[in-house]
C-alpha cells in the first residue's frame, strides 16, 4: 500500500475516533444560562442560600433577598420560618468556639440568641409547626454526631438518634415538615476508622464505609438501605416515597459524583443525574426535590465557572444551584452569584 493511502486511513481513523468520543461526551442535559450571574426570577421555589464572599462575609439569601450578613467563623447552617419571617442561623464565636442558635426577625431586625453551647451544629431543619429545629448535632470533644431536636420556645435540646450506641454516628438526615418523617444516614465509627487506618498505612483510598439509612417512625426505626458507597446529604421527595442523595466514587484518582434515588419501600437505587461536560455535580451537592416533586435542585460547578480567591488566598470556583427537570431531563441554572461561593442551601417549605 502507498504511503499516502496510509496517511488517508490514519486521518479517517482519527476523525472517526474523535467523532465517537465527542458523542460519548455530549451530555443528555444542556444547562441554560450556565455562566450568567443571576437568580432565576421564574423559579417555582424559594431557595434559602448561604453565600460566602471573598472577604469571608456570609450572607443568607431568601431567593435574591439578602436577609442577614455575618462574618464567617465556621460552617454555616440556617432555617427559615416563612410565616413568622424568622431566620434561624448558627454563629460560632471565634475565640471561645462556642456555638449559638440565633433567631432574627427579618421584619423588625430584632435578634435573639436562643442557645449557646460547646456543642456544634452544622445542619438545621424547621418543623412544620415552626416549634422545633431538627439538628445534626455534635457534643463537645466527641466524634459522634446525632440528630437532635431543639425547642425554640423552651430552648432545650433533645437527642433523638442514636439514643444509646457509642459507635453509631449520623452523617446526614432528611426531615419532611409536612409529615414529620425523619430518615437518618448513619454508619459505624469503628468500621470507618478501621478502613481509614488500613488505607493510610498503604497510602491509598479507603474502602467506602457502609452507610445505613433508617426511617424513624416515632421511637422505632426501620432500616431501609445499606449502601457500600460514599454518599452524602439525603433528602425526601414530597410524597416521601423516595430519598435522593449524592454518591461519590473515586475514578482515576478523581472523585466523581452523581445524584441517586432510593425507593423508600423497596430499597432499590437508581441514578438520576450524572456529571456532564457542562455541569460538575459537587460531592456535597445537597440534592433536594422541588416542592411539586417535578425537579431536583443540586449544587454544582458550571463549565468555565470563574475561579475566585478569597482574602486568605483560598481558591474555589463559583458554584451554581442547578435544577434538574425529571420529565424533560434538562438542567437549568437557578441561583448563581459572582464574588463568592454557595456553601449550602435548602428549598424553603
Amino acid at each position, binding site marked *: 500500500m502507498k504511503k499516502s493511502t496510509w496517511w488517508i*486511513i*490514519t486521518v479517517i481513523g482519527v476523525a472517526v*475516533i474523535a467523532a465517537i468520543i465527542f458523542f460519548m461526551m455530549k451530555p443528555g442535559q444542556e444547562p441554560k444560562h450556565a455562566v450568567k450571574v443571576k437568580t432565576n426570577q421564574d423559579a417555582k421555589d424559594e431557595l434559602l442560600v448561604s453565600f460566602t464572599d471573598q472577604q469571608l462575609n456570609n450572607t443568607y439569601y431568601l431567593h435574591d433577598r439578602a436577609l442577614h450578613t455575618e462574618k464567617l467563623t465556621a460552617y454555616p447552617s440556617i432555617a427559615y420560618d416563612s410565616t413568622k419571617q424568622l431566620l434561624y442561623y448558627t454563629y460560632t464565636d471565634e475565640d471561645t468556639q462556642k456555638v449559638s442558635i440565633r433567631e432574627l426577625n427579618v421584619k423588625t431586625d430584632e435578634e435573639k440568641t436562643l442557645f449557646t453551647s460547646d456543642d*456544634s451544629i*452544622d445542619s438545621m431543619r424547621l418543623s412544620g409547626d415552626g416549634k422545633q429545629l431538627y439538628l445534626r448535632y455534635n457534643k463537645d470533644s466527641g*466524634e459522634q454526631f446525632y440528630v437532635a431536636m431543639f425547642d425554640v420556645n423552651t430552648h432545650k435540646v433533645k437527642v433523638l438518634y442514636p439514643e444509646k450506641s457509642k459507635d453509631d454516628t449520623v452523617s446526614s438526615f432528611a426531615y419532611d415538615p409536612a409529615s414529620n418523617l425523619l430518615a437518618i444516614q448513619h454508619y459505624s465509627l469503628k468500621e470507618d476508622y478501621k478502613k481509614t487506618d488500613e488505607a493510610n498505612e498503604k*497510602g491509598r483510598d479507603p474502602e467506602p464505609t457502609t452507610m445505613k439509612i433508617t426511617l424513624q417512625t416515632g421511637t422505632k426505626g426501620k432500616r431501609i438501605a445499606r449502601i457500600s458507597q460514599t454518599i452524602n446529604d439525603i433528602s425526601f421527595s414530597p410524597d416521601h416515597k423516595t430519598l435522593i442523595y449524592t454518591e461519590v466514587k473515586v475514578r482515576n484518582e478523581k472523585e466523581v459524583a452523581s445524584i441517586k434515588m432510593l425507593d423508600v419501600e423497596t430499597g432499590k437505587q437508581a441514578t438520576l443525574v450524572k*456529571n456532564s461536560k457542562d455541569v460538575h455535580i459537587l460531592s456535597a451537592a445537597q440534592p433536594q426535590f422541588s416542592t411539586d416533586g417535578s425537579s431536583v435542585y443540586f449544587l454544582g460547578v458550571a463549565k468555565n465557572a470563574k475561579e475566585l480567591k478569597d482574602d486568605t488566598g483560598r481558591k474555589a470556583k463559583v458554584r451554581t444551584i442547578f435544577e434538574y427537570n425529571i420529565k424533560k431531563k434538562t438542567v437549568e441554572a437557578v441561583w448563581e452569584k459572582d464574588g463568592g*461561593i454557595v456553601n449550602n442551601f435548602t428549598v424553603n417549605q
Partner: protein
Amino acid sequence: MNKKLIATIVTVASLFLAFSFSHGASAKKVSGNITWYNGVGKKGADGKKLGHWDAATKMGFDVPKKGTKLRVTTKAKPHKVITVYKYDVGRMPNAVLDVSPKAFKALGFKTSKGVVKGHYTY
C-alpha cells in the same frame, strides 16, 4: 507503517479520553502547602481530642464541616493518598492543611522535611 498508524490512533484516543475524564472531577479541591504539627492528644478548635488522622484546615470561604473526611495527596512522589478528618482550624500563614506527624509520614515524607506541596479534596 502499521505500527505508526496504531500508535497515532491510540495517542489521539488517549488524549481525548484524558480530556473527557478531566471534566469529571466533582470534589472541592484546596491546593497549597501541607505541614505537620504536634496536636495529637490536645483539643482541637472543633472541640475534639485530636488523633493521628485528625487535621487542621485553614479558614477560608470554602469551609468544610467538622469531622469532614479529607482526601490528601502531594505533588511530589511517592504520591500516596491519605484520609484525614477535619477537627481543627489552623492559622497557618503558608499552608492550607496541618496534619499529625504520623499522617505526614504516611504521605511518604520525613517530618524533617517540614512542608510539602499538595492538595486536599472533600
